[in-house]
């Protein structure tokens, strides 16, 4: 597959008791697409869609604020703002 110019892809797998996987594509330093999967718990579950949606178009530097806002009243196990930030950063660093 020929990579579209300016688009890179990265994947991160983080294990903190539970597993979090991030598959992301970036346009320059902004998140183009993002998928978060894993065996964690998040209540309410639909927050995951909100997270993915809210992170699109954001630069890697902006993600913490977005993640913390979306997860503000959520309950979670094996997933936290810190681990998510870490995972997105890892995907960013490992992009091809």
């Amino acid at each position: 597959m020929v990579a579209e110019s300016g688009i890179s892809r990265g994947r991160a797998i983080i294990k903190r008791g539970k597993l979090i996987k991030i598959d992301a594509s970036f346009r320059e330093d902004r998140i183009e697409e993002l998928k978060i999967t894993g065996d964690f718990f998040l209540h309410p579950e639909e927050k995951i869609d909100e997270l993915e949606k809210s992170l699109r178009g954001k630069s890697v530097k902006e993600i913490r604020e977005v993640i913390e806002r979306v997860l503000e009243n959520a309950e979670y196990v094996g997933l936290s703002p810190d681990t998510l930030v870490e995972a997105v950063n890892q995907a960013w660093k490992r992009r091809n």
Partner: protein
Amino acid sequence: MELRVIFDKKNKAAWNMALDEAILMHLEELGPTLRFYGWFPPAVSIGYFQSMEEEIDLKKASELGVDVVRRLTGGGAVYHKYELTYSIVLPPPPGKILDSYRIVEKGIVNGLKALGVDAELSGINDIVVGGKKISGNAQTRRYGGMLQHGTLLMDVDVDEMFSLLKVPQEKMKDKMIKNVKERVTSLHNLGIDIEFEELQKIMGGGFKKALNAELYEENLPDKVLSQARKLEVEKYGSRKWNFKR
């Protein structure tokens, strides 16, 4: 509390998940409801946030005639074969969602106690015996109600389980299998071989005590069953839902 109890049989994966959700949708008219069931054919369920293709070797599942389904609840992939599964639908108790997992999990702990097994809660969602996992549990809140379902391993075939599950690093697979064999137990491994139907009754007693409930057996109304049939076809039997992540 009065708790309706349904001693169900072993069903197809999509039906089991559909019926759990249909009961949750009808909590108000059904009242608190506990259901025990099994899985036939055997099945792998994945957590709400997992990727079907990444968790399950779908070719192998198809070869072995194993069903696959995405749950309404979070957590990991589970191979359901030699196990008793419960689901319970209740009005949400006050307080944190994560704290409420154990209210229900105590039902399993009590049931195990009646079998002479000393079990304890571990983390949010596991029950362990001598440090080894025997039960996993998961919850969701929806339609104004709470649904928790969980497993109790009657026996376990770790090799078969790992033939169906994909692991992040294939070269680590042998090590992981060894690790899981050391960290998971079952009633059979504890020297308890009991009929599925008898186990349901004993676990029912465990929940009765944990929830301070009066149990009564009453079948589900047609309305709930037809809702479940709809969900079975349109949701849990669909590619759209099962492969949505």
